[in-house]
């Protein structure tokens, strides 16, 4: 076991972990930040997507030892002043959520996109979430919700 000070959602978390543990397992099992989901644990489904220094990464294939000195943002860190982020609101209100298991990963990928590209096209939105598998929605309502969050026209 080694000791880690992790910067997550603007806070510093102190924890002991094995260096070979994934960031996802540390978030979920040690820090009890369970919003990031484990859908495959092999970097294929995107449910574990978090932001590392502003870039979307798959936390299930990232070692905890590789995130020292970096800023991690998880789904729990998105609300500001107790209010849900607009992406979270639009996903809720426009039917972008069914079972909800892919939802945190989708929202984090979308958040990263909108930080870089505040008014993305539909193709850019679809590309940004192409690594996030959703089995329930067929993606249409997710795309709509993200267009609404970006303030771009909805098809």
């Amino acid at each position, binding site marked *: 076991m080694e000791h880690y000070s992790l910067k997550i959602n603007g806070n510093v978390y102190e924890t002991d972990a094995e260096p070979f543990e994934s960031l996802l397992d540390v978030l979920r099992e040690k820090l009890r930040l369970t919003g990031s989901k484990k859908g*495959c644990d*092999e970097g*294929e*489904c995107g449910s574990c997507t978090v932001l590392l220094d502003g870039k979307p990464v798959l936390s299930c294939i990232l070692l905890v030892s590789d995130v020292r000195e970096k800023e991690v943002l998880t789904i729990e860190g998105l609300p500001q002043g107790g209010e849900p982020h607009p992406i979270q609101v639009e996903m809720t209100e*426009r*039917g972008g*959520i*069914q*079972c*909800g298991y892919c939802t945190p990963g989708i929202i984090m990928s979308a958040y990263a996109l909108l930080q870089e590209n505040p008014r993305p096209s539909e193709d850019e*939105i*679809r*590309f940004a*979430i*192409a*690594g*996030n*598998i*959703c*089995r*329930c*929605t*067929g*993606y*249409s*309502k*997710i*795309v709509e919700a993200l267009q609404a969050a970006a303030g771009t026209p909805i*098809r």
Partner: protein
Amino acid sequence: MTKKRGLGVGSMFYGIGYGFNRADIGSAYIEMADDGTTTVYSGACDMGQGIMTVVAQVAAEVVGAHIDTIRVVAADTTSTPDAGPTSGSRATFVQGIAVHEAASDLHDQLMQTAAGMFECEKDELEAHNGDVYLKGANAPIASLAEVAARVHLLGGRCASWGWHDNSTADVDPETSQGDAYASYGWATQLAEVEVDTETGHVKVLKIVSATDAGKAINPVAVEGQIQGGAAMGVGYALYEQHILDQGVPRTDSMAFYLVPTSMDVPEIQCEIVEVFDPKGPFGAKGIAEPATVPTTPAILNAIYDAIGIRITDTPATPERVFQAIQEARARGEFED
């Protein structure tokens, strides 16, 4: 031109519920607390498709409450009654009626007490969004919370339960003749595809789904299920395949078993058709499985329309389509 486009349709019917004499029940408890908030103990599991929301909508409608005052307790053998499985596109159709029954009885209890409070007959009263009105009046005479507090103060019953049996008789064992299901879902889909005749790759450009929901209790939820069902149909028709080698799975990772991504699923246009079903709650029926079934035949028929070749084995992978094109070329039957 190496890319050819085609259109295809697929229709289907789907027996709602379990059918042929399999247990097919719904049930729920309902109670209103002193402050007018309602809890529905609904035994129907919500996998994300939205039965908890449908239950809340039915309860709010029938009790006359505001939906934000309804809490739905998820299925639990200790706290909710047995409502059967959530499968067979049966939850709204069967559980919707059980909740309707429970909520109707609770509504009656509340109106009975309100009638006593205001010295009128209960049939002269109605409730909407948490308020009680004399029928037709614009201003409420009381809130449901006030009425509920009164019921509890008087030691009255402010709870009920509903139960609904959707079971049918079995079909004849020799001929299968009989009323196999209480009702059927109906759907037709249109698929537009583009087939690359150099690679065999099929791209679905568009799906239009006309799905009979009976009555869409929550239209956005209905559309979401239609779109998700069609996406699963796209996967079945074109991509997804469990490959076994001597009975041992070789596709035991998401790296090898491919489900459609946001780049693979096209625009899915939902055309909700509402043919009132007299057996369903508010005329509604299930749509979860009718959403999935027509997609694959529509895509296969569209592939035929595009290239004049009928794919008879699923999935229509690039390898399979390309091989079929090559065979047709060899026979001189393919128009490049």
